[in-house]
């Protein structure tokens, strides 16, 4: 035998191994639990909320889900990477204002105005990502700057008043339906497919998980962590702009005061879906369920005629409750 002896008692590896398995199972468990919660919510609302089951209301739910969902897919990757983007609400409002201003007052051709909105959204997000990647400014702070700045800019540009949009075919399609399904819901569904694919099947998507799981290890393995971070925020910026177009089409105007608090609905949906704010762990399927959960609650509270202010209280309690149950479940299962 060699003279090299282990420096301490050999560590039993069995518990750790079991922990890993269970780690995966808890994610599954969380998703099954969420499906259960959504089914219960659905049944309860169907029984108690007048008009919940009507086709009109179900389509309205789909349309509402898109408000959160379109950005939530991108946000899932941001949070998996261990980052956060809180600029969504103002970015959406700003994008709607930019579209109205550009196509109206500034007389930019409509198609160009749309492209302008998307490009500006992308660049603003990339800018925040660059601040994070290059100088290590925490993403909360970088996007807090956008959160404040874009809301202020949108309100300043419009004097706090809605800016009407000239109706056109493109806006009608965005605001309307295709084959009976609300267009925003279709866009949300397509984007879901795209992000599901990107997250699980592309080099970029897996790199996001690696960066969130251990940024230093990812860097030493040759992944360009900075590039990944810039792309992440550029993506949320772009999709916030898309949401802004949908909002403008729906309201028929650019509205600097719209989408207040949207960022927290999006983050709540992602977190309820089981994505860890610590990074490295999460799933788009979970976020899809989180979006459904949040949308059903919002819709139900309106139909039940709950006081508008009190709705926020109920939502707050339910969101924290959902995450608490999630955490308790994973502790129970993950504990040695």
């Amino acid at each position, binding site marked *: 035998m*060699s*003279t090299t002896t282990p420096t301490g008692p050999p560590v039993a590896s069995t518990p*750790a191994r079991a922990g890993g398995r269970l780690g995966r199972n808890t994610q599954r468990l969380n998703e099954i639990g969420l499906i259960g919660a959504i089914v219960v919510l659905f049944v309860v609302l169907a029984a108690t909320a007048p008009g919940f089951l009507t086709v009109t209301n179900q389509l309205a739910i789909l349309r509402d889900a898109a408000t959160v969902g379109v950005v939530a897919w991108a946000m899932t990757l941001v949070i998996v990477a261990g980052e956060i983007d809180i600029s969504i609400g103002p970015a959406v409002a700003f994008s709607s204002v930019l579209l109205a201003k550009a196509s109206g007052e500034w007389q930019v051709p409509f198609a160009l105005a749309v492209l302008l909105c998307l490009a500006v959204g992308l660049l603003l997000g990339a800018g925040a990502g660059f601040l994070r990647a290059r100088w290590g400014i925490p993403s909360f702070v970088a996007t807090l700057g956008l959160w404040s700045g874009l809301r202020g800019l949108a309100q300043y540009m419009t004097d706090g008043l809605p800016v009407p949009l000239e109706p056109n075919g493109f806006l009608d399609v965005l605001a309307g339906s295709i084959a009976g399904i609300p267009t925003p819901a279709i866009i949300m569904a397509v984007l879901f497919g795209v992000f599901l694919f990107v997250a699980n*099947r592309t080099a970029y998507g897996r790199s996001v998980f690696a960066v969130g*799981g*251990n940024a230093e*290890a990812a860097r030493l393995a040759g992944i360009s962590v900075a590039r990944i971070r810039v792309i992440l925020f550029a993506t949320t910026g772009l999709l916030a702009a898309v949401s802004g177009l949908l909002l403008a089409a729906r309201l028929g105007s650019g509205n600097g005061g719209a989408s207040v608090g949207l960022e927290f609905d999006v983050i709540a949906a992602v977190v309820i879906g089981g994505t860890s704010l610590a990074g490295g762990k999460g799933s788009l399927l979970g976020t899809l369920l989180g979006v459904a959960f949040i949308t059903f609650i919002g819709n139900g509270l309106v139909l039940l005629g709950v006081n508008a202010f009190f709705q926020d209280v109920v939502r707050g309690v339910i969101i924290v409750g959902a995450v608490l149950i999630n955490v308790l479940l994973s502790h129970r299962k993950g504990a040695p």
Partner: protein
Amino acid sequence: MSNTDVVAEVRAGTKRYPGVTALSDVDFTVRRGEVRALLGKNGAGKSTLIKVLSGAEHLDSGEAFVRGRPLAGLGTRDVAGLGVATVYQELSLVPDMTVAENLFLGAWPRSRGAIDLRRMRAEAREAMARIGVHLDVDSPVDSLGSAGQQLVEIARAVGQRPALLILDEPTSSLAAAEVRQVIDAVRHVAEQGVAVIYVSHRMDEIRQVADTATVVRDGRIVETLPVGTASTQEIVTMMLGTAPDALAPRARRPSAERPVLSARGLVSEKLHGLDLDVRPGEILGIAGVLGSGRTEALRALVGLDRPDAGEIRLRGEAVRPGAFAAMLRRGLGITPENRRRQGIVPLLGVDENIVISDLRRVSRSGVLDRRAVRRAAQTLIDRLAIKTARPGTPIGTLSGGNQQKAVLARWLHAGSDVLLLDEPTRGVDVEAKRQIYHQMRELADDGRAVVFVSSEVEELADICDRIVVLRGGRAVAELSGDEIELNRVLALAIAEE
């Protein structure tokens, strides 16, 4: 000396861990005012002895006493109450707090509910004076540098007015010039009647600080002797005992090829004019004590750090320093020293942890080809005998050795031909060690360059074709082929300045 001078004692102490006898029938005594060096290889039983004396472990048989009280059944807190204070290698200070705040961390002097700042400062100055050091107690700890921080750690331990002070490699992260301050502080403490147990691998420093040395090997005490009377060579021989078995077939074929990677005059915080040549087809060992610049040398070579001065050439061409991504593209690979913090992405599968080094190889226009991922990973899992339930099992659940093999596999996947391995066998079991050695040998035979950094000189002497010894950020000696002998390497690595 009378028996009342004895501060701590172990009688016929034996301690077993599953598969290892860490201490075997050990007798050990340390007296007031004595500085006792504890010497031995990694795994010789030093840490276990320290743990027993600080109450963190208990003997299976035999007895341990501190100031005459048996330690059986006592916890670390009780033993601390008896007057044992321990300073471990890792610093446990809050960097942004001041020296004074750190000295009383969690036990700040209070008056009427608030922290009594005046008293805290006064007592802090007193505590620093007790180790003979004068520092501004209001400066934040992270402005002090490593030596200053280590002194604060020692002052904090001494502040508990211990009868026995245990220092576990207190200078391991310090540059040679900074060591002096720690030595002075330790001498100062001993003069006040405190017994000190001092663990270090640096012979020159042990000669300055210690009165006596106890050499431990394979869980037994070989000898306790006055430091002044023994030569370094004698002590090294005692530490090693009989010649170790070969861990891997010795090749001893230093390569005659042109260097693939070479450094000239690298200067940075820890490097002071480092010259190094890395040749294809050989295992180059880098020896040297902690703080000699081993890790820094690797980081500079691979472009992770940018040296202040010096030149790095890859295949004869000068490269831009600090261009890490470019170096990886051009065939370098590095496995970091701290596997858990820098090596693995714990939640991802073994397969993804392997192919992460070059995702392009297993994807087409950015889209991963799952079959290619599985094939690439499985090939390497087989080649390195990585024990995992499935290729997709999260790597965080594997044993250290298997994790390390996967991190190494990464660079085989990327097809790197210059491999820089920083402590690839640390915390790895014997079997995995052998597999890693064999892998290194195969890579070298395959014509690749392997650079092997290790703090275990034994393994370097066993498997390297050439060894460069670093001291104080410079290459001070080079041994190749048959010149490589364990005792020579060891003596060079820990030799006096």
